[in-house]
């Protein structure tokens, strides 16, 4: 039965080329915008190399402090977590599988005593970082717990940095300078796309290399400092609630003994879908508002093309009134006819969906340098010369295809249902009369 519908639909398309072309174009336009949003969301939240464990990760990146004595200090303060805060609030946690701390930087990389300086991004991590994220080592291995504990100046570098400095990826054991300090290369990893916000870097070193990584600021109870992120890897998603409870308990314990400043984590630790919306340290993301906004945008992006398509379908239904009348006279029920029209329409919508998906790939290709930063209230400009690549697996995968399918179905129903329903309300005689007169 379905096959017959599709055959008929295909015939209709060939007979009305102009209509079909405009219809497919209209559908493609609408679907492409939605797909761009869907792909961006996928890239930011799904498990992609090397952040394959995103579904089990929680993050903390900032802290807010308020004065206990509001006469002496009038204002709230906020900023990044300090090492002390990470040590007191997150490191003692029992529920997570692993806890890791990361600090960030940017400085010059060079060969020892060479004037050829390349500015690169860096991350200072601990040994657990390598067990949370799934880096692929081209040669060598990550620094060990012992290296980390002793603050040994070792580094893991990206493949492209190794090639830049030494001409080849096998650079284990060689020496380089970062920030004019010598580091021995312990491992070389496969390049990480700039698209991966938590792991992109060119060099990773133990944060124990930083002289004063655990220096406590004399103000604000030393809770604000230079930690970039705290990562909590849960055993499974069902542990998120208990992790939050445990963290809240640690916060409560701290505040109970605090004399000058009380702390507030503003809803952290966050899961993946929330942390990408947290920009400021003094105010958390309003997820409800963000969800409503996203829904509204999606709705409008689908609605306006759907209105176009509905209009076109209305006209088309008028032309097929006679055909519908005859079918009804021969006993077809309204439901059956609606089904048939929707199925025929689905073919057109499907073609539009395919075209829309290809269009969305094109859009992403041309805007890749900045499109990931849309919607961010504050963002860093792309470091000079950084390539932004969407890998094949980010664009072609089951999830994306399923989403296209879903969007097509929604579009189909939005644009065909009402016109069909309205035209089928006419009775048989009227339909035949209108057509042939």
């Amino acid at each position, binding site marked *: 039965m379905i096959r017959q519908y599709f055959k008929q639909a295909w015939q209709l398309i060939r007979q009305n080329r102009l209509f079909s072309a405009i219809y497919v174009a*209209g559908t493609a*336009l609408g679907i492409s915008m939605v797909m761009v949003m869907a792909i961006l969301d996928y890239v930011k939240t799904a498990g992609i190399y090397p952040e394959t464990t995103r579904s089990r990760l929680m993050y903390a990146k900032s802290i807010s402090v308020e004065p206990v004595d509001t006469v002496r200090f009038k204002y709230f303060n906020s900023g990044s977590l300090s090492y002390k805060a990470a040590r007191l609030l997150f490191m003692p946690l029992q529920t997570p599988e692993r806890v890791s701390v990361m600090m960030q930087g940017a400085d010059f990389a060079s060969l020892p005593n060479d004037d050829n300086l390349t500015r690169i991004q860096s991350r200072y991590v601990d040994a657990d970082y390598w067990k949370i994220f799934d880096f692929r080592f081209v040669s060598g291995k990550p620094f060990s717990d012992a290296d980390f504990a002793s603050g040994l100046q070792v580094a893991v570098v990206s493949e492209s940095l190794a090639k830049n400095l030494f001409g080849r990826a096998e650079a284990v054991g060689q020496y380089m300078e970062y920030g004019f300090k010598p580091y021995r290369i312990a491992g070389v990893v496969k390049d990480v796309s700039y698209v991966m916000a938590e792991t992109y870097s060119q060099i990773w070193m133990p944060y124990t290399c930083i002289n004063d990584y655990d220096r406590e600021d004399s103000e604000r109870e030393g809770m604000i400092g230079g930690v970039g992120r705290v990562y909590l890897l849960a055993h499974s998603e069902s542990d998120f609630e208990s992790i939050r409870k445990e963290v809240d308990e640690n916060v409560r314990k701290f505040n109970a003994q605090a004399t000058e400043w009380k702390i507030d984590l503003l809803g952290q630790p966050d899961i993946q879908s929330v942390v990408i919306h947290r920009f400021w340290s003094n105010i958390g993301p309003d997820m409800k508002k963000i969800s409503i906004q996203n829904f509204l945008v999606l709705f409008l992006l689908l609605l*306006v*093309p759907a209105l176009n398509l509905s*209009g*076109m379908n209305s*006209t088309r239904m008028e032309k097929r009134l006679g055909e519908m009348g005859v079918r009804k006279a021969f006993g077809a029920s309204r439901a059956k006819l609606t089904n048939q029209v929707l199925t025929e329409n689905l073919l057109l919508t499907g073609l539009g969906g395919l075209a829309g998906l290809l269009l969305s790939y094109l859009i992403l290709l041309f805007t890749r340098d900045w499109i990931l930063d849309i919607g961010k209230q504050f*963002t*860093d400009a792309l470091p000079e010369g950084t390539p932004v690549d969407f890998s094949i697996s980010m664009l072609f995968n089951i999830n994306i295809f399923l989403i296209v399918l879903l969007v097509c179905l929604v579009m189909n129903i939005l644009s065909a249902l009402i016109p069909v329903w309205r035209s089928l309300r006419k009775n048989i005689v009227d339909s035949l009369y209108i057509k042939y007169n």
Partner: protein
Amino acid sequence: MLHHIFKQLWAQRKYNTWIFIELMIVFVLMWALTDFAFVMLHNKSIPQGFDANDTYLVTYGIYGSETSRYNPAENDSAKIPENLDLFVRKIKAYKNVEYADLTFLSWGSIPFSGSRTNTFVIKYNSSDSLEISAEAKNVRSGDFFRIFRYTSAKDNSWERLASIDLRQNNSILITRMVERGLFGDESAVGKTVMADIGEGKRNYVVADVLNDQKRFDYTLPYGAVFGTSPQVSAKNITDFAVCIRTKQGTPEQRFIAGFRKEMTGQLRIGNFYLEDIQSFNRLKEDINYSFGVTNEVRTHMALMVFFLLNIALGIIATFWFRNETRRSEIGLRMAMGSTRTTLQLQFIAEAIILFTVAVLPAVIINYAIARTGIIGLNTDLHKYETVTEALYITQDFTLCFLVVNLITYLLLAFIILFSAWIPARQASKTHPVEALQDE
């Protein structure tokens, strides 16, 4: 003819419902987007107040004691300023450099920095509590004005400003906005004001008045005051950098690449090394990007194009398929003497009138949105954040609202006109006999 068209539209209201609703919704959406675009373009067109073309920022780094290149012999309080002076002199001697000088960096003193310091400027010994908010900037030497070409409101020259020694007589420079706010139509030169430019609240004498300046491309001008900066010493070395103005028209990329290649070795003086050189135009782009403005502009433009394309498609589709259903009518008209042109005009007129009718409820919706702020349009910062009232069109709510709606109407009308014309042309090519025969 108008009456006739109305009758036609009403008779075909069933077909017209979809496109009518779409026109309404798209008008509201386009109004919001046009509002943003209007404010942005308006702000961008206001003069910056200085000239950042051909200017560059050169930052130096200092080898720390834990690095492999540190030379302890160069680290005493006499050597450090000496080395820095040599650093600056070498840059001054580089080819194509017109001016180069050590400039104070902190808190918004150079253009397009991400931070700023605000201070309140108050008339000295005044009975009223008039305070004007202004950005405080610190200037180390007169060359600052030659490099960035801030202009005096008196004769639009920067030489005049460059020749003022701010360290004498507690001098301060203010912009026109501050002058207007504090002194109205009187000249502020020679008068005393109170402000905090980093030395605590003190009295200063206004030495000259500058033209208004904007902090970013897309914001309205804000008040500013210029005072002296601390002198450079071994203790505050990291608060300074070198700013350059090259000869006019020196190609940017080539200058930067050449500078990096030829001066990196030369500028390794003592523990100083060349950290970065960047053009101020690039810094401006970076700061616009960082604050999310560039992407906001891009998304708005993309959305505008999207909705306009949809409307174009919708109008073309509606009118094209109407041709087919009204073929006999067209044939009849032509047989009765309508020219091709009249026919096309009728089609286009139908489209425009349908659109205009759809605009009326849409404008009411726009007004509701603008007044009640149901949907935050995020333009308040750009529309209103300036010091004195009612200087710019964006601050007048009614005028701005009317202008933006008008622009939206014209923009959409143009697209609709064009989109209706294509099928209209097709329809006018119908041969009357064929059309009537079909019937």
